[in-house]
């Protein structure tokens, strides 16, 4: 059994101290220790993107990130955007455009989309396709997701 360590993490602006295996991934710590369940384990291999979270403002695969490396860096999951206007725009567009089907990819998709919206100016569909290419969705065919991000981007930059 791997050694357990005390980790000090900051998740969605809350400080948390957890006991975790040195080899534990951020995804495991978020889900099993902190019960923050919005990041999903779809492949545990860094391909599907369902576990995407922001680490220090950058979208990362939490399944490929060791939790110990996140000490001192703010971690943000889709739960942590209560007062964020760009996330609110994305959420509204996702709902109204029918971009949500089973929803398993949605948390990670929203994190990646939110990061794209931090660029100045309205995003092209090519920008969005490139920015979301690491988030797999098997339900929608992506079209309504891309529509939603484009609409949110337009609204955010207007």
């Amino acid at each position, binding site marked *: 059994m791997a050694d357990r360590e005390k980790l000090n993490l900051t998740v969605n602006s809350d400080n948390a101290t957890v006991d975790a295996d040195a080899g534990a991934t951020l995804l495991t710590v978020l889900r099993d220790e902190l019960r923050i369940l919005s990041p999903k384990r779809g492949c545990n291999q860094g391909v599907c993107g369902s576990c995407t979270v922001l680490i220090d403002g950058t979208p990362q695969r939490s399944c490929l990130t060791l939790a110990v490396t996140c000490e001192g860096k703010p971690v943000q999951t889709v739960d942590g955007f209560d007062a964020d206007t760009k996330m609110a725009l994305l959420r509204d567009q996702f709902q*109204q455009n*029918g971009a949500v089907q089973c929803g398993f990819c949605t948390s990670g998709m929203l994190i990646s989309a939110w990061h794209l919206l931090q660029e100045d100016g309205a995003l092209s569909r090519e920008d969005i396709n490139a920015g979301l290419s690491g988030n797999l969705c098997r*339900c929608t065919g992506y079209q309504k997701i891309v529509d939603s991000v484009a609409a949110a981007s337009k609204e955010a930059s207007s």
Partner: protein
Amino acid sequence: MTVENSKTGVTAGVVGHPVAKLDSGEKVMGRSEYIADLYRPNMVHGAVLGSAHAHARIVSYDTSEAEKAPGVVAVLTGDDVGEGRMGAFIKDEHAIAKGKVLYLGEPVAAVVAETEEQARSAVRLIKVEYEELDAVLSPEAGLAKDAPILHENLDDYFKVFDTGSAGNLASRTVFEEGDVEAAWESCDVIVEGEYTTEPQAHVAIEPCGALAEVDAGGRVTLWSANQSVFRVQANVCESLSLPMTRLRCLTPRVGAGFGNKMEAHVQPITVALTLKCGRPVKLILTREEDFEIVRARHPFKIRMKTGAKKDGTLIARKCEVLLDCGAFADDSPGVLGYSLLMARGPYRIANVRSEGKLVYTNKMRFGAYRGFGNPQVTFAGEQQIDDIAEQLNIDPIKLRRKNMTHEGDPWFLGQEVRSNGLKQCLDEVEARSNWKKRNQAAQRPGVKRGTGIAVAAHISGLLGTGAIVRMLEDGSISLNTGATDIGQGSDTVLAQICAETLKVPLENVFVSSPDTDGSPYNWGTTASRVTYTTGRAVAAASADVEKQVKEHAAQMLDCDIGDLELRDGGRVGIVGSNTDLPFFAVSAHAHWAVGGPLVGTSTLVFERDTLDPKRAVAQGLPFPRIGVMSFSAVVTEVEVDEVTGQARVVEAWSAADVGRAINPQLVEVQLEGGFLQGMGFALYEEMVWDGARLANPSLMDYKIPTTRDAPGVVHPIIVEAPEPDGPFGAKGAGEICINAVPASIANAVEDATGFRHRSLPMTSERVLRGMMSADKTSGEEAS
């Protein structure tokens, strides 16, 4: 913070409106709970050990090391389960391997431990002694004389229809109308070919999993990723020989299912584990296990022959298929029979024979996958229609229009088709894609461009369903159907049907989560059936409540029932007057004064026969009553890179006749998502076996389409030819959207390159080789 659903305020006319899915608010907040998100007090974790051999007798188990490992609570092997067997068509499968293993990776033992990591470590310490047997790795090998037999007691297994099982033959089906062999003589053109398709993995982004707990009385509650709590209940109880009253099945949100979550996956093992250790057990598969031990789309070998007159009239078609069943029958006999029922295509062809065999092999089970065998036979059939069009120099759409079925025509074997929007689908895709001017855009150097068309039909099926509509004391509505919403939005669609019937705002209808204790039986979210079949029950149960409301109101207002009408917003009033009552007053009257609580119910089973014995003969028909027909036409434009051979879909027009779009936005998503899944199947998705071992069980090695692979645009086109007994005319949309896609792309690639691909997937390498051989052929012809 909550996200308001701004469109749920719609009251009258909620059917036909693109209201946001009822669960989308919680999903964009990341708050939906899927199976892996559930935790119970004192819960432990399960893990399975996969068989080391494709075919072997289990001689003995040594579990002593695993039992001593840290955190281990219990170990399970085949010795712990009885003789019970489950299966949708042939009951051939134990809860866990017992006596023999039949494919590499088949769960042969399981461990429960305090943590998932401990369970996964400990399960590897179990030693299984095997006596290895020769493996059957193809259907041809399975049918060979002296082939090793997978199921030695096949004769004794319970079967739900006349399967004709023998040796490794799991089932055989033969259908015939007219006289095919005599008809070839009257054909002016005959096309014939062999076609193969490869296994496709479902890749629902949520892997399969289950959580079970047992109470003090020995009764088990089971949550799982599923498409039917009732099929889960049946499978677990059959395989573990439990009375159905001892098992309650529930569902969390489901991270999509495309057929993979309809029949059992790890639910029986999870229940066996909780019964053994007495604590709640959660067992979630890894992505690799999800690839290796659940199920996949059948590889098909198809031999097809189609004949026509000079004027394009189709005269005869013959189709023979050979299906790899894998180790267990699962839904395979149904897939075989259904593919043969659809092999004629949506055409008037007087002479048709289709037949096929399903053969056990030592591979994972193949089973239900969106389209249920239809995309495979359509891939063959729709390419032959194009071949005939080319030989007769007739426009492919014109040829299809000439031969298509019409409303009132019988389907193959005889069932009358009462609604048929195929002509309109063809008209729409022809006009919207500017078909007559196709391929006239400026060519880019190094790129070949082509356009293809294909059509298909699909059922909205079958079997039993029900609905309970209750009016609560405050006049709001509780709807309970037992239908699992797997993300496609059936809860929303059924709520729309209920709200429309009772003229209440959508937010006044609450949809209960399926529960085998409290929901009426529902066969499942499969066969494109929930909107049509369960929708019928919801409309009827809602109408039952309407009748009861009017009976109470007639008493309360001292008028005739016939003088009453429902009014928007949940009121009942006298026609031609302002006098009315809110539902809460009526419901209070029923609850507290007279008659009792208002409960409307309806149950039904799809009732129309597949086979008209005066028209056709059938042997081994798996579904005597199957469903109503929906239709589609798909035009696809592709670009093929002349250097790499990569085919890309540039644009597509996908039209589907869904009877009536209860929620047009949800239908559009089906058309868009179904297109992309069909495109992946057509162009690159392929499960590859290296001998007995699945070589690419990961998302690194098995690619599904990403945003970068998606076409520039897929145009979803909704066509509405109302089904007379459908709810508001509705039919299903979930599978009709995928069936014609691979054929449409294949016809486009042929148009671009001159080479006809009879094997899927059309990878860059295959397309490049095809182009090279096509160039050579035309060169030879020119010389």
